[in-house]
């Protein structure tokens, strides 16, 4: 102990040379050149026609398509998809063999159908069933019909499209929710049971809130995929939708590319907003699992050198 008791001899704060990363500077140079070329081309090639693209983005039919087909379509389809998906997942894990098989058959069918094909088929259901009677089965002659649905009219409506996308989404969400439920430790349901909670209470209060932590990130993925899949609504002849409307302007004015750029820009904006929402959800459902890692903001000075 005596040999290092003198303060002057003891090592102090570390002031070392950082490790050099010359590769990063090379990468920055390459990226700068490529980005410069892209910006140059975008600014000098008049066919990009940015001002027209910006104009297209603000056209009334485009905004209407964005709001109804794309945003309401996504929200509606995801509400159906998540709600029904969690239900199917719970059925799939149930003790009741009937529910298990039904859930399996549901997932099997809707996962096997391409969305475009599913929507096109649903859009043509009016051919099979022009009118659907709601009432007691086999009792039409007795007049026990409560309401009649005109399938031909319905099948061209946005609601039907949302239903189609939602049914398809539920099959994928069911698998995501099942993975989430299975990820929760078995001790959790035992602890809840030991308190005298019923199976339903255990699922609602204990298992699902913890499963959400695992369910949210892939659900964000699904939601963003759904934003883009709303462009498939055209298969049902639903035209109040972002891509169809921008494309229509493009073909009408023969300025195809700027119209596509307008569509791309809107999709980017909507998806960016959704990603922000997802990070809030993740924080909420991650409570109790330690502090979320603080976002380390990459400062430009840190690119060249790490301590």
């Amino acid at each position, binding site marked *: 102990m005596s040999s290092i008791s003198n303060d002057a001899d003891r090592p102090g704060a570390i002031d070392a040379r950082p490790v050099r990363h010359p590769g990063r500077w090379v990468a920055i140079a390459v990226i700068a050149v490529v980005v410069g070329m892209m910006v140059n081309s975008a600014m000098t090639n008049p066919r990009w026609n940015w001002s027209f693209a910006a104009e297209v983005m603000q056209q009334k039919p485009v905004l209407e398509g964005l709001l109804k087909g794309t945003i309401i379509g996504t929200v509606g389809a995801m509400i159906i998809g998540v709600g029904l998906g969690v239900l199917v997942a719970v059925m799939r894990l149930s003790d009741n063999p009937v529910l298990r098989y039904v859930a399996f058959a549901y997932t099997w069918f809707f996962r096997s159908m391409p969305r475009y094909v599913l929507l096109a088929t649903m859009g043509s259901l009016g051919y099979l069933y022009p009118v659907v009677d709601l009432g007691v089965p086999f009792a039409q002659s007795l007049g026990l019909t409560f309401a009649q649905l005109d399938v031909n009219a319905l099948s061209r409506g946005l609601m039907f499209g949302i239903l189609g996308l939602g049914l398809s989404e539920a099959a994928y969400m069911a698998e995501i929710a099942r993975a989430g439920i299975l990820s929760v430790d078995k*001790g*959790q349901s*035992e*602890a809840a049971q*030991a308190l005298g909670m019923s199976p339903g209470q255990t699922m609602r209060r*204990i298992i699902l*809130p*913890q499963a959400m932590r695992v369910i949210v990130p892939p659900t964000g993925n699904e939601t963003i995929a759904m934003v883009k899949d709303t462009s498939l609504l055209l298969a049902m002849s639903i035209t109040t939708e972002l891509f169809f409307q921008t494309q229509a302007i493009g073909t009408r004015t023969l300025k195809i590319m700027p119209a596509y750029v307008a569509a791309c820009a809107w999709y980017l904006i909507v998806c960016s907003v959704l990603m922000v929402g997802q990070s809030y959800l993740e924080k909420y*459902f991650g409570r109790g699992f330690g502090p979320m890692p603080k976002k380390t903001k990459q400062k430009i000075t840190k690119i060249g050198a790490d301590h």
Partner: protein
Amino acid sequence: MARPMDAPVLVRAINVTKSFHGNQVLKGIDMEVRTGEVVVLLGPSGSGKTTFLRCINQLETIDGGRIWVDGDLMGYEDKGGVLHRLHDKKIASQRRGIGMCFQRFNLFPHKTALENVMEGPVQVKKTSKAEAEQRAIELLEQVGLGDKPAAYPAQLSGGQQQRVAIARALAMDPKLMLFDEPTSALDPELVGEVLKVMRDLAAKGMTMIVVTHEMGFAREVADRVVFMDGGVVVEEGPPSEVIGNPQHNRTRAFLSRMRQEEAAHGRPPTTVDLSDVPAE
């Protein structure tokens, strides 16, 4: 603290059997636990003591025999000699009077300590939130965690988590408490704080069945020790007899193994009475 041996029987198990995939873990267990009694189940791992404990509150269903808790036949209804399996909700209500603490604590990680303790009363007994909260704070104080109501389980040490788990079980006002190796997952220096809470609980007259390897706790607190091995009860009696003067070879072999381990791992003598361990 001598307990009257004429206290009413709270738990009665007769000829309980249980197999997992053809492997018989319980081979006909008979046991009676009277109100206010503290019974410690001892035995090597695989002896079936944890399984038997889990059968009492039906986390496992038994294959044969019967278990009654406070006069209720667990899991079944006897209608004129024919057993009918109870519905899940009925089983849930049978479990309400039985508190359980687990080896791995199993606190709800998405809820604070206070919310963990409130969950049972609010959801199951439909107690008002204000009332449940007040009681939960009292219980957290009772287990020495009055200053930690807002902590999430991940922010607590193992010993603190187990004490919250005890408070959570007590919040349901159980007539019986089951402890499944409550200190086995703890660092040695944290064992004492959990055992202290359990000892206080026993002193208050709680009926307890405890699976543990803490010989000191068994000796000091248990009214009766039951030694199990290979799915049967080998011997039982007051701790002074079963631990102090075991009659069966299997009990003797187990106890001497336990003593060797205690000596080898240098367990702190906070609760473990080492008076009969050969001095080194």
